[in-house]
């Protein structure tokens, strides 16, 4: 506003009703607006613009509270995009509507500082609706000053979400029609439905009395923030004489006569926050959190010795989700790592899991691993019939299928030169007291049959993962049962394969 921006001057003005008014410029504003390219002694706002008044009230409150050195002012996109020309505080200019999001992160980076999000109605109530609602709902300890002038100023007079019913704008040329554009959004009321906010008030820059109220509201919001109490929001009904096509005095009156009836002035929220106490997570040294240092009593690095009679060995585990398919793969991979091999584990992921089936690929290799995706596994561990049918054909000649049943489905034909071992692992696990160890029974069989990894390493890994003593015992038995099954049955069966094929 031109009349308030004669910088460095104390200006005398005789107001309408004959009183002398002294305008002073807050020290919180820069002496000279050097970030502007010209007219550095005055603001860029139009005469009579509410932004100028709102700036002045905020600056004075910050100054009175001694907060200048602690404040970060977040400027929006809108006519106040250049707020940083004026406020002699730390300034961050952000994207249209996103000030509450950016302010959130600034406040969390600097929790004892004052963070102000200053926004227009297009910025806050249209494009940035999600950001303001969620910042308020999280109870971010910031102060939001929401300048509601019912119009898009900066872009030249398009309809705002707060434009009054019937008001014309360049994008509502016949007046705002609720049937087409909806009704004006009441942001203060809307935010007051939320739990977290501490203070919400609507004020108007319509006349001296209301401006004094606005001054108090702004100061109060900043005090609440200073005291760390929570989210504060002041909606400021504000004149935009230029777009409204009114002179400054008419525009102020219009705020009172037309806007206030639609946007009633009120304190919508003023209460001590009732935030449950946050249990901050325990703090731990970085190497512990990142598992760089070994867990107490756990694996301490080093290589478990085992003779690997392969260059590459690949295993596909498949079954229902919940059968421990992915876990079995992970355990084998971890074992490979501990035995000094190059290893990779790749799961099926996403919606497929929800439909109930899961599979994963395990590569064990003496060399750097290429694709973690296996087209032809050496071993398929099929934990259910669907997986057997789906993946058996992928197993290459010389490969092995471990099938979690005592017999193959009658109509199933194993691929050529592939051995199939049927092992009723689920039943065996059940007898041991936990169907959950089906995967460990199968692991025992796999290790005994192929000798790809050592059962000793398996127990080491299992001991690290299973903490409960009884459960650990069941796992130990499951592993042994799987191995025993192979010793008892499988070798004989394998030797009696029709084509005589056996490794």
């Amino acid at each position, binding site marked *: 506003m031109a009349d308030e921006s004669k910088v460095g001057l104390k200006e005398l003005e005789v107001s309408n009703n004959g009183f002398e008014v002294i305008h002073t410029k807050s020290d919180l504003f820069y002496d000279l607006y050097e970030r502007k390219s010209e007219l550095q002694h005055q603001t860029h706002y139009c005469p009579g613009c509410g932004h100028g008044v709102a700036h002045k009230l905020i600056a004075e409150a910050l100054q009175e509270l001694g907060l200048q*050195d602690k404040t970060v002012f977040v400027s929006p996109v809108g006519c106040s995009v250049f707020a940083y020309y004026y406020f002699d505080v730390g300034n*961050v200019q952000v994207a249209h509507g996103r000030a509450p*999001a950016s302010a*959130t992160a*600034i406040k969390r*980076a600097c929790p004892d*500082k004052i963070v102000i999000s200053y926004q227009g109605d297009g910025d806050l109530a249209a494009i940035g609706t999600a950001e303001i609602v969620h910042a308020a709902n999280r109870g971010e300890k910031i102060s939001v000053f929401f300048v509601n002038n019912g119009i898009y100023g900066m872009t030249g007079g398009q309809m705002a979400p707060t434009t009054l019913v019937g008001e014309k704008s360049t994008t509502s040329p016949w007046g705002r029609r609720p049937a087409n554009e909806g009704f004006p959004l009441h942001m203060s009321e809307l935010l007051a439905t939320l739990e977290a906010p501490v203070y919400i008030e609507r004020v108007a820059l319509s006349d001296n009395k209301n401006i004094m109220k606005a001054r108090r509201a702004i100061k109060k919001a900043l005090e609440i923030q200073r005291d760390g109490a929570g989210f504060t929001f002041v909606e400021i009904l504000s004149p935009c004489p230029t777009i409204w096509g009114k002179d400054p005095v008419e525009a102020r009156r219009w705020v009172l006569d037309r806007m206030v009836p639609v946007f009633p002035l009120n304190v919508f929220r003023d209460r001590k926050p009732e935030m449950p106490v946050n249990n901050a997570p325990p703090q731990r040294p970085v190497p512990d959190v990142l*598992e760089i240092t070994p867990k107490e009593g756990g694996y301490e690095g080093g290589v478990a010795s085992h003779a690997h009679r392969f260059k590459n060995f690949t295993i596909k585990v498949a079954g229902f989700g919940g059968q421990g398919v992915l876990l079995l793969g992970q355990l084998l991979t971890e074992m490979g790592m501990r035995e000094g091999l190059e290893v990779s584990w790749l799961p099926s992921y996403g*919606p497929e899991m929800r439909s109930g089936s899961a599979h994963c690929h395990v590569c064990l290799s003496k060399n750097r691993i290429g694709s973690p995706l296996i087209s032809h596994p050496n071993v398929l561990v099929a934990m259910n019939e669907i997986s057997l049918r789906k993946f058996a054909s992928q197993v290459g000649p010389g490969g092995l299928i471990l099938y979690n049943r005592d017999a193959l489905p009658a109509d199933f034909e194993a691929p050529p030169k592939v051995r199939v071992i049927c092992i009723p692992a689920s039943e065996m696990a059940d007898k041991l007291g936990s169907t959950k160890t089906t995967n460990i029974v199968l692991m025992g069989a796999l290790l005994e049959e192929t000798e790809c990894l050592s059962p000793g390493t398996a127990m080491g890994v299992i001991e690290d993962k299973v903490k409960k003593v009884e459960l650990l015992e069941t796992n130990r038995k499951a592993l042994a049962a799987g191995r025993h099954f192979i010793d008892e049955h499988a070798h004989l069966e394998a030797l009696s394969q029709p084509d005589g094929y056996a490794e």
Partner: protein
Amino acid sequence: MRQLCKGNVAVVKGAILAGCRAYYGYPITPASEIAESAALYIPQVGGTFLQAESEVAAINMVYGAAAAGVRVMTASSGPGLSLMQEGMSYLAGAELPCVVVDVVRGGPGLGNIAPEQSDYFAMVKGGGHGNYRNIVLAPASVQEMADLTVLAFELADKYRNPAVVLADGFTGQMMEPLDLEYREIVAPEKLWAVKGTPETRANLISSIYLEPDQLEEHQRRLEAKYIRAHVEARHEVYQTEDAEILLVGYGIVSRVLRSTVEVARKQGLKAGLLRPITLWPFPTEALVEAASRVQKILVVELSNGQMVEDVRLAVNGKVPVEFYGRVGGNVPSVEELHAQVLERAAALV
């Protein structure tokens, strides 16, 4: 100690090692474990994790944290990255360092959650508005998910620019051994940040330059910075010394290509591999050098052909550059790529 770790988790472990203490993000498959492990780990080392209301909010939170001088990151996949593009343009314009991870899935639209490399254009060419660049790093293993995240933080700070870790669904989801070494990070002092202190009171973070001359000057400065950043180009070569056909691929594809080179060589075909590690800056010089000795280049991507354009620009017609791509989440097998190499090599003689 060597630990078995998921690629997505390794990203967060690397980030914490790099001194990242702020994470703002929104879940999406196949990147969600990044948010999940950030939620688990970062608060335990005194940092901030917040699940934002959207990727739009997340990237603007990243903007706020970066403005306050914090090492900050976010991660997402295709659709989420699309939403972040405006924010990334602002970050680049305001010269704010941050790390953004894209665990690429199939597109366009909702596509699917399987791996693709179809966000190359969006990340490398700058998917947002205006003249800007992202630094883009392409990990091919779980170890690199951590290591390149560390590097991304360093480069982001060095150049005051967003750095992208461009991975894919497989690299995010797979587990491999991870070796991490803890060292105390001395975070660089950011004198330009806005922290609500007397020393930083005069600072301004902004991307708006109203006067054409001012904006031009700003962009010239950015350009000069981007030119300086070319020294950061990184790549890896395998068996290129005597190669007749050069295979070029990044990320997960480079692993399959490496195996393909081995298979091809066993059968007497002299194939070599060049894997760009930085996609921007692109390892142009290395590529030109390698290309000078081969008769043909075959670029393989999980896309319809995106990086291949940069390869063609680099070699500038000196050797034929052919392309083979799989999309939709299909990752070619070694046999498939070997067949491609054989076919194309046959045409040489």
